């Protein structure tokens, strides 16, 4: 039970941190912020790598590989398109 409790602690504290850092966002940045946060949710790629790494069974391999492809699309595409948007925001 000790391990699960530690995970819960981390979950709750990280949720609070997420709420704090994002509470004041100018409307100007809502779209890039959403797309950037979305790219971070591609962190599922870590999970996909972990299950695929040691996969012996066919179905584990299939599901894990599908997970890697989807998560990589999310991560690479998400960060790149966010950067593409943000580089246009300039002050003159």
């Amino acid at each position: 039970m000790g391990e699960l409790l530690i995970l819960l602690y981390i979950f709750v504290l990280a949720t609070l941190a997420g709420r704090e850092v994002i509470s004041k966002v100018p409307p100007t940045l809502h779209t890039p912020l959403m797309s950037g946060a979305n790219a971070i949710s591609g962190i599922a790629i870590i999970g996909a790598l972990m299950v695929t790494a040691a996969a012996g069974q066919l179905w584990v391999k299939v599901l894990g590989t599908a997970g890697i492809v989807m998560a990589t699309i999310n991560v690479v595409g998400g960060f790149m398109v966010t950067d593409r948007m943000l580089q246009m925001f300039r002050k003159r």
Partner: protein
Amino acid sequence: MENTITQIVYLISAVLFVSGIKLLSSPATARSGNARASLAMLLAIVVTLLDHEILNWTTVLAAMAAGAVIGGLLARYIEMTAMPQLVAVFNGFGGGASAAVAAAEFVRAGGNSPSLGVDVGVTIVLSTLIGAVTFSGSLIAFGKLQGIVTGKPVTFPLQKTFNGLLFLLTLLVGASLAHVAVADAVAPLVGMGGLEISGPFFLTLVVAALILGVLLVIPIGGADMPVVVSLLNSYSGIAAATTGFVLNNYILIIAGSLVGAAGLILTQLMCKAMNRSLGNVAFGAFGTEGQTAKAKTGERPVRDVDAEQAAMVLAYAGSVAVVPGYGLAVAQAQHELKKVCDLLEDRGVIVRFGVHPVAGRMPGHMNVLLAEADVSYDKLLDLDDINAEFDSTDVVLIVGANDVVNPAARDPDSVIAGMPILDVDKARTVIVMKRSLSPGFAGIDNDLFYMDNTLMFFGDARDQMTELVKEVREA
């Protein structure tokens, strides 16, 4: 648990994620914030690859390469106007990945989650459920934004009851998967043994969650999709965090819950900008009741002008406030608009932009489109700032916006009552560039068009803007 070095790199990556998101919330630092978050991701990926004994390098690298190419091409070549649907698709993939990971863990446990212990069983069920709902829900949101699925709310009798029952089914199936005692109690009801039910029940869970995702999004109107995408974004974070519980991995939990919380806050901010509660967006089927509004269109006289007259009014004004709407983006007229503004500024006219929080197809979308046209972001004023200026503004130029400048929002009986609007009617002269008098998303007539100080400048925004460039140059 992985070795110490891996854990320390995960910790560094977590710090970079938090500070990256923090930097993302100011225009001056946003780009470095995004870079920091991508560095965090890269660190986490590399250390995970090094830490695990990878049995199938070829598969892993090929899968990553395929994903990177697809994601990269989409990100590089997508039109800025299509940003909402792109975010929806990416988000769906994030949720799908979490569900796939949870399913893979289920299979690895021999299709028998109770043998993993209740805690892991519960988290496998949760991340499968949330991930699958996110996946199918995001794809429907994409379809609606792209116009493949109808943007109108799709409803059928007893929809909420059906959704409720479906959700209960997933809970029951999920509980039997997670706990031996529940499995033993439920299994005889479907004529199976406690262990036999695992496979079919897991499939039932996946299918029910996918259907649930579709049914939750389909009754929501196209105009509300950005709020839905934002909420689903939050879900995909939570799905990733629950996957972290399954795999006992800290960085998954931290990054996942960061996004879960950030997504929820963004959703609330967007709801506030649209003057809707989250419950209202989710269950209101908005857009169906709007059509009942009074249909006075075409009955009342309007004053219309051509490009030459509009150019005169603009060129001899002291200050101009431009109010852009989605019509501007559809017509791809933002670059021509920028030219008009440059010419006006050369003549000494003060030009500013009043951007409504929900202008465009998603909150903040118009700012991206104007930034693409090279408009400096310090000229883009938020709702409150520009509203304080309209009293002293000579001319307001509205391009392809409608509901966000509709004074009916001040009328408590209107369907858009209380929606925050730009008080353009306070300016001395208002020029409305628009295709026709037809109503906007809310489906109601706009009294602004019939006011004495309003000039209607009909036509396609791009053609008219090109004309305007010419006329302002000659004025």
